[in-house]
């Protein structure tokens, strides 16, 4: 097991390099650069913009910039005033030494910014994940057990509809109904201002709508998948044997059938995490939730290169870790699977 995880982590390294290179090249192709955003001041002269550009290393060829971003530029003499001689050493230490640079827009280290936002994003996505499984699994199992019943029909229709609903629209409709019209729930944010920070009920109230929006796709997929798996298991010999022994329906379903049907659902975890990260971008924007997604969208709008790159790296790392975790989990719940 340890060996397997180690190898998967090793395999992830070239993937991560690929991701950073691809995103870096893409960002560099952008027409506007961050300088134009910093220097909105019309009084600034051309010379100082050039100086700033050289200072930030934006005058270098793309691949050089990528290398600086990767391993830092503290070994390079930067020619700030443009006279052909190096003046100062760079200050960046590069991704490989744990430095993601400084956000141009926030003027804070990118890593700190992202790390401060991750807990909020995880609070949303993990809750949505748990809700997705907790609601989806029973619906799927019950659908399969009562195949063809009214419940089954409704659940199947809802699972297709749940997949087709755009999350942002559902969010808007929920805000309109529950916050604006009925005034049951707060429109956006994470807690009531001025209230104790640790008031859990208050914070839970703020989470209801974003979590519902995020969890909906998960509920739809999990229930649909679970239904198929359970139907398959229910047709197998050992289930018939269990029934022949005279076990109650409940014991057969929950003790024998569901336990095996649950196995494949472990593989859902990785892709689901990726989907949730993407979903969080939109959900956080609608509900003004101070997480990674919103930070990222703002960075994209402001052309904040270091922050964009940092978010992509951290997002990809989280996603890859999720994929590995789901493989490991698959092996843990099913002893027949050998990791090799």
């Amino acid at each position, binding site marked *: 097991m340890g060996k397997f995880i180690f190898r998967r982590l090793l395999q992830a390294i070239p*993937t991560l390099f690929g991701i950073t290179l691809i995103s870096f090249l893409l960002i560099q192709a952008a027409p506007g650069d961050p300088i134009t955003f910093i220097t909105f001041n019309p009084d600034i002269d051309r010379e100082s913009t050039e100086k700033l550009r050289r200072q930030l290393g934006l005058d270098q060829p793309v691949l050089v910039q990528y290398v600086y971003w990767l391993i830092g530029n503290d070994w390079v003499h930067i020619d700030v005033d443009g006279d052909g001689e190096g003046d100062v050493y760079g200050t960046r230490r590069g991704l490989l030494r744990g430095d993601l640079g400084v956000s141009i827009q926030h003027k804070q280290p990118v890593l700190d910014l992202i790390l401060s936002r991750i807990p909020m994003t995880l609070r949303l996505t993990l809750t949505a994940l748990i809700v997705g499984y907790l609601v989806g699994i029973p619906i799927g199992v019950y659908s399969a057990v009562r195949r063809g019943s009214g419940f089954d029909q409704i659940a199947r229709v809802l699972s297709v509809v749940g997949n087709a609903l755009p999350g942002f629209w559902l969010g808007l409709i929920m805000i309109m109904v529950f916050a604006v019209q009925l005034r049951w729930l707060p429109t956006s944010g994470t807690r009531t201002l001025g209230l104790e920070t640790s008031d859990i009920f208050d914070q839970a109230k703020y989470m209801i709508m974003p979590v519902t929006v995020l969890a909906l796709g998960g509920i739809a997929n999990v229930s649909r998948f679970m239904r198929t798996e359970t139907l398959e298991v229910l047709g197998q010999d050992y289930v018939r044997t269990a029934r022949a022994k005279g076990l109650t329906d409940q014991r057969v379903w929950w003790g024998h059938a569901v336990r095996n049907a649950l196995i494949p659902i472990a593989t859902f975890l990785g892709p689901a995490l990726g989907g949730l990260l993407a979903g969080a971008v939109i959900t956080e924007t609608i509900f003004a939730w101070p997480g990674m997604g919103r930070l*990222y969208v703002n960075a994209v709008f402001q052309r904040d290169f270091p922050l964009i790159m940092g978010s992509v790296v951290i997002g990809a790392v989280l996603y890859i870790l999720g994929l590995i975790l789901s493989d490991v989990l698959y092996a843990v719940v099913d002893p027949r699977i050998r990791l090799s």
Partner: protein
Amino acid sequence: MATVNETVTRRPIDLGAEQAEHQYKIRGFWHNAARHVWHDRLTVAAMVVLLVLTAVCFLGPPIVESALGVDPRTTNILDRFLPPSEEHLLGTDQLGRDQLIRLLYGGRVSLGIAYTASIMAISIGVVVGIVAGYYGGIVDDLIIWLISTLASIPALFLLLIISSVFSPGPEALVLILGFLGWLGAARLVRGEVMAAKERDYVIAARAVGAKTWHVMFRHIFPNVLSIVVILLAIDAGILILTESGLSFLGLGVQPPTPTWGNMLTDSQTYFTKGPHLVIWPGLMITITVLCFYLVGDGLRDALDPRSERK
């Protein structure tokens, strides 16, 4: 009518099943699939809705414009947030533009993007998948590495970068979505090709000296055609969702060109004044995506030889 004698020896129901089996065998694969779809009422209904919607969005606007005397660009500050009325069937938006006509034009853009981008994404996926599966070896390794790398970036992250870089019009957005959407299709096609290339008739074709591209597209491609048809429908649904999400964030198609997504961009600020502006565009998205998914599911039932025959 069967004679009495026959009914005694063979029960009519068996006769029916046998005949059906015989019929099934003499008809071709696509013929059977078409019959299967035809008897699947939900799928047919979804197809009809999609066809009608497409026709209305692409052909309807001039008719609606002349019949109601509205057009999508005229703004009128006095007519902002009008509720649905006889003159404006679905009311007006925050700039006093008629919502119905904007929905139709928006549908043109959204559906157009979905159809073309899905055709493009699947075409790339098919070509890449066939090449990877057919050649195997280092080509396959490289392609798989590329796919798994691209697939490890949460897709929306990548899309946001690209669409902010190119701030695309509808045509550029098609290219972007097409170039990013082929990963899943390529994987599926590759798997299918790997199985198909070991079949006897393919080996035979190669043995008699058929050119590589001939083997690929005449002998192997038909094997993946059913996957392609299913993926086209499901992908179009996913693309509508992606495009409208991007446009909603302000990173997709830019106003004043309407799409169902960007019609919702500012709707957050006028919940109380114009709920009709929040409801309609989203409803159109949901219905369209739902129909694409239903058609995809129906086609899967009809085309997948493993699914049970009805």
